[in-house]
């Protein structure tokens, strides 16, 4: 098995790129980045492995932190419980893991396998199960492929550990684990249903860690050369500029436990005189240009600071920000009829037929 040791600089790029792939959700990777900087200073390294090198019967831990981003601002994430979540799963399964991977490359969860890898030495698989961020457990490529959703382990800092041995559906898994998560303070490290190497290779969304690193590097290179980082990301990733504008209004509300809302933008530059409306449910879900839906999930809708190119989350949107709305292509599995049933506009309650901005371009 070959692995690449990630440099400290690549970790910085990963955090930046993962926040862009968060499409507004997933939480800021800042604290995870601080943990990794500290671990790197202590000599630890993250080894990234090509999923193609996974043995078919390899055991892969799929991890994420569950909880409210605001709680994470106070109860700062700690690599300890992250490691304990996979140890609890190993004990339950009676076998050790060979590698660890993120369920979600978008936002703070991208750095979770890296923190576990830096502490335990386990290699981090270059891939995830979303290719972006999504709010719910069934919105993964593994769920779209009907892989089993159990068991799941959930661990908090006090060393409470919960194992959900079975769940009747992905929705039930979400309900049961959410309940436990709330009880321990709305923040917990989880190890999702373990995957075999073969399942990862066939059902995972591959090479997204290196993609996030690449996007981060693109932004950093453009910033250093005083070029437009947004155009650089569009060029580098085959993205499309959807709108440039200034945020005029943000309205937020919580329904069914999610942060929903809309942002209204007034056009600038080439979009002067036009208006853009962006709906979000933790992540950006649908965008309307002058009342017409022009971009929608699962295409990645990224809102970036017009100058720095850094991502802006749905919780940090505010009046007057100058932003670019950029679409990046979604992983193909999300665009299949089954995929769209899980993560298309109707899965978020929008009565829209999915139309990719990239289909138009072709």
């Amino acid at each position, binding site marked *: 098995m070959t692995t690449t040791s990630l440099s400290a600089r690549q970790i910085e790029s990963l955090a930046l790129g993962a926040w862009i792939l968060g499409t507004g959700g997933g939480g800021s990777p800042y604290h995870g980045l601080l943990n990794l900087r500290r671990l790197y200073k202590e000599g630890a390294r993250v080894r990234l492995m090509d999923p193609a090198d996974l043995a078919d019967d390899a055991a892969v831990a799929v991890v994420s932190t569950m909880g409210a981003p605001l*709680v994470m601002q*106070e109860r700062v*994430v700690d690599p300890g419980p992250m490691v304990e979540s996979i140890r609890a799963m190993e004990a339950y399964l009676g076998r050790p893991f060979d590698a660890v991977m993120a369920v979600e490359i978008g936002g703070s969860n991208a750095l979770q396998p890296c923190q576990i890898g830096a502490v335990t030495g386990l290699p981090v698989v270059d891939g995830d199960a979303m290719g972006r961020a999504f709010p719910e457990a069934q919105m993964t490529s593994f769920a779209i492929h009907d892989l089993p959703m159990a068991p799941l382990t959930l661990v908090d800092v006090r060393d409470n550990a919960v194992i959900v041995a079975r769940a009747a559906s992905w929705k039930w898994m979400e309900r049961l684990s959410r309940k436990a998560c*709330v009880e321990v303070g709305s923040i917990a490290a989880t190890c999702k249903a373990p995957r075999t190497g073969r399942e990862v290779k066939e059902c995972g969304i591959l090479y997204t860690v290196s993609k996030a690193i690449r996007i981060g590097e693109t932004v950093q290179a453009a910033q250093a050369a005083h070029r437009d980082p947004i155009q650089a990301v569009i060029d580098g990733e085959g993205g499309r500029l959807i709108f440039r504008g200034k945020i005029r209004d943000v309205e937020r509300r*919580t329904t069914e436990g999610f942060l929903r809302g809309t942002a209204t933008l007034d056009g600038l530059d080439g979009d002067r005189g036009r208006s853009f409306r962006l709906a979000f449910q*933790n992540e950006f879900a649908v965008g309307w240009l002058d009342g017409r839906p022009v971009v929608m999930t699962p295409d990645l809708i990224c809102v970036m600071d017009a100058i720095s190119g850094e991502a802006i989350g749905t919780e940090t949107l505010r009046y*007057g920000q100058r932003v670019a709305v950029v679409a990046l292509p979604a992983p193909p599995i999300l665009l299949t009829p089954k995929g769209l049933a899980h993560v298309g506009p109707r899965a978020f309650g929008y009565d829209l037929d999915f139309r990719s901005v990239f289909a138009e371009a072709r």
Partner: protein
Amino acid sequence: MNRIGIDVGGTNTDAVLLEDDRVQHAVKTPTTADVMSGIRTALARLLRQAGGTPAVDAVMIGTTHFTNAVVQRRHLAKVAAVRIGLPASASLPPFIDWPEDLADLVRGQVHMLEGGHEYDGRPIVPFDAAGMREVARRIRDSGIDSVAVASVFSPLNGSCELEAETILREICPGVAITLSHRLGRLGLLERENVTLLNACLRDLARSTTRAFVDALVASGIRAPLYLTQNDGTVMLASEADAYPVYSFASGPTNSMRGAAFLSKREDAIVVDVGGTTSDIGSLRHGFPRDANGVAEVGGVRTLFRMPDLLSLGLGGGSLVTETPLAVGPRSVGYLLTEQGRVFGGDQLTATDVAVAANLVELGDRRRVATLSPALVRACVARMHAMIEEGVDRMKADASPVPLIVVGGGSFLVPDQIPGISEVVHVPHQAVANAVGAAIAQVSGEVDQVFQDLSRDRALAEAQRLAEAKATRAGADPTTLAVVEVEDLPLAYLPGNSLRVRLRVVGDIARGGAPRS
């Protein structure tokens, strides 16, 4: 009601005397290295103008002294950091992500203890009071005399920090104690950073405040002394010396508040054109709009109430180069009156171009008569475009608003700007910041998560808490008004959790200021 406002800036110390709502006297003197003699000079000149020592109800001082101490790494004390929250948040200890040079200066001891709370107020684990006693003994033995205490979710439940304070008072009486929940908002690392910065400035704050009081006494003025804070409100000096961090960024706030007062506009964009930069901000209801993002002070992340400011590298002293045409960001700064062409120097500055374009009468205009009209036109167009672009960036929405111009370089601002209803010039615009200090009010703020309350009831409860805070700080309760309210429903939390940030302000209670 007579009030004196003093602004101690990097270049000038300005002082104004306000009688009710009128600026009666204003003076501008150079800032001195020791700060105090500059204040004494300013006060002496102000009183001479007034023809004696009038009855003064309050003196407000705005200063960048404490910000500069952090930025310049001077006069900072060693601090013992106490974090309460284990087993949570253990991997990112106090001083994480600080610039190393600053951390080396300030980090005395770091202690982490069990305790802290959840988002809903439940304890994470019981507070380790025995551990705290041991920590207090070690602080006492080390000779460190300033302690910063930060507990997880203390803005919602400050009991662990209060218990720690009690133990510290008992075991090491005399140490200065800064508790994080008195300073701020949710966001552990940023709130703790502010607590640490505050703790390392306590000594300096105490001596500076004492010197302010001495300067006042020496001037024969008997009035309570207030220090201005970054949100345009004031704190009694006797209380403010415990919270020096609140003065961070009070300079731009004062200048924007002064602009609002002098122009009698509550909602406007303000541009303060100085020697090196133009600072553009947005006034809403007479107060600067806060920056929402991370505000850094001396390289340290904070979640501070800072005015949302756009700083352009354009001021009266900005250097002009001809090929390629450029204005700023380099500037001759306070040396303008020596180095600018119209003043006999040989540097071409924005002021020289403005004189050549007949925008202002300054110095000897014959010295810029040879400048090519095309260059002057292009240069003025460039400066106007910079300001127009900056103003547009700071506007919150598309509807036209007035632009209030303050500062010494106000002649660089064009008379007409797209999206601006009116460009407003006001008397005393050069001392707007001292005026802003003089008119400062008292505030109370709440930033808290409310659960299982309707939105209306949560907002009402937040207002009640904020009003109580403001009244304790010296406000006249009958004048309190809500100036800012923001509510953010929290994703993933059950029971309709709503984070409410609400701020009220009111006038200083006449004679209600408990002590000076």
